[in-house]
């Protein structure tokens, strides 16, 4: 690895002291509760708070039990792309997704790795249908997402968090995008999987034909799917059924996010009222 002169240098090579975790198929016990006591179709408790970063135009922080994601949005600025002749009529969203170096079990490097780049593109595709891009032609909105701790379905949490941050930054949008993910192996399905369940279903237990993980970006008011990111092994009709099942759950999450946004806007109006009195 070329020496990075812009950071304090540690020893050349160092490896993790933990033995690599083997996949425990115990997670798949039929019909029983999951490792953290949730039922199969139950989502983790969501903690969501807009306006956490004072310096950003809009920001949001989401916590799904151990998955913690923070996102900040800056107001539109001149498009930085060098080929100026592409005077597109549509604005652009520039997403940057980064796992913190201490976010996973394995330490990650400071530079952007392959999956950071991949998630940036997926997040960009998930948000673009929701934002009225024609409102700011030739401008780009920067969406910066940082995963502080990753315990499964971090992309889904990032989609919801980025949607709320965009709303907090008053970017014109058609709808609040909501991210949901589901892992399945054999006939057990985990809604909003944790890190261990996700790794388990990605590999799939031998002999089990259907397994995999998929993340959906939803725009519930128009019932649109903005991003469908799946990896695994499944037949098409079962996949269609699962997508519509997840659709119903998306509506609930969407209501919750709307309520949070509403209360945040109300509190900012009240505070700005009495701040007028003060001056």
């Amino acid at each position: 690895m070329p020496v990075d002169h812009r950071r304090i240098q540690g020893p050349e090579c160092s490896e993790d002291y933990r033995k690599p975790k083997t996949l425990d198929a115990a997670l798949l016990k039929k019909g029983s509760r999951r490792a953290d006591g949730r039922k199969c179709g139950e989502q983790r408790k969501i903690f969501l708070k807009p306006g956490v970063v004072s310096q950003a135009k809009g920001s949001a922080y989401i916590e799904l039990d151990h998955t913690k994601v923070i996102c900040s949005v800056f107001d539109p600025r001149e498009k930085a792309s060098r080929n100026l002749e592409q005077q597109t009529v549509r604005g652009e969203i520039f997403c940057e997704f980064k796992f913190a170096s201490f976010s996973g079990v394995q330490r990650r490097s400071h530079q952007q790795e392959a999956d950071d780049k991949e998630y940036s593109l997926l997040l960009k595709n998930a948000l673009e249908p929701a934002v009225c891009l024609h409102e700011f032609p030739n401008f780009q909105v920067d969406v910066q997402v940082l995963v502080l701790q990753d315990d499964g379905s971090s992309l889904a949490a990032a989609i919801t968090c980025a949607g709320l941050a965009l709303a907090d930054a008053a970017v014109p949008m058609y709808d609040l995008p909501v991210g949901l993910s589901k892992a399945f192996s054999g006939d057990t399905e985990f809604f909003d999987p944790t890190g261990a369940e996700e790794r388990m279903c990605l590999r799939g237990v031998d002999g089990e034909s259907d397994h995999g993980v998929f993340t959906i970006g939803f725009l519930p008011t128009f019932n649109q799917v903005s991003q469908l990111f799946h990896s695994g092994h499944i037949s098409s009709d079962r996949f269609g059924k699962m997508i519509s099942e997840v659709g119903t759950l998306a509506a609930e999450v969407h209501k919750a996010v709307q309520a949070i946004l509403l209360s945040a806007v109300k509190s900012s109006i009240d505070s700005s009222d009495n701040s007028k009195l003060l001056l």
Partner: protein
Amino acid sequence: MSVHIKTIHPMKYMRDFLARNIRPDGRKLSEVRPTAINVGSISTADGSALVKIGNTVVICGIKAELTVPNAENPNEGFVIPNVELPPLCSPQFKSGPPGETAQVSSQFLADILVNSKCVDLQSLCIMPDKLAWVLYCDLICLDHDGSVLDACVAALVSALCTVTLPEVKFDAITKNKTVELEKRRPLTLTCFPFASTFATFDENSILADPSEEEESLCSGTISIVTSGDSLYSVHKPGGCQLSENRLSECISKAQKRSLTLRGMVEKSMESIKS
């Protein structure tokens, strides 16, 4: 009305406030913003802490790994601090390799660790010349609203307090290492350095714990790292001249503040132990 003056004549706006020795956000000159320290919030890291001073938020995550000590000092482990100022925390930073302020802060933290010897590097060595611990301390600023150095040092020290390292036995002949994950012993710190930053304004007024716009308007800053009795660093990169007594005034304020910060860290440590 006040917003327009602030954007057009920021200096005049600030001087009017300082004339009545009060600050735009209502604080007195030597008053410090409310500070909160939350410890052990990231379970995937071996040690972590989040420090919030006013609006400035810095999170520090420490990952421990095993490595071979270098030749110069074979019986010492490593503590590698690195500060990241991502574009997330403020529009002034670009994405890509760390900018100048980030590099200066990382070097400042590395100097403090060397000066104060708060982590005894010998205790990090498992087998001299064969195997030692390396603690990668990665600090990420989530909100850049002034005096980020204070928050970084506080976050680093409190995260180091929460680090627990598993027992490792190294068998020289067979060269394999056995790690008992259950028996974890905490890392002991020899001292608790804390930083306080002061901004100097037209040579006479000194503001404690400046916010982002105060920092951008001031003529110079001075950061003093102390743990109550001895000084670890008096870092004044330039800015206006400071006479003798003003300097010692800052040092005494810094010492008082480091004692209060130390109390807060110990209180939050008890909260996670119980």
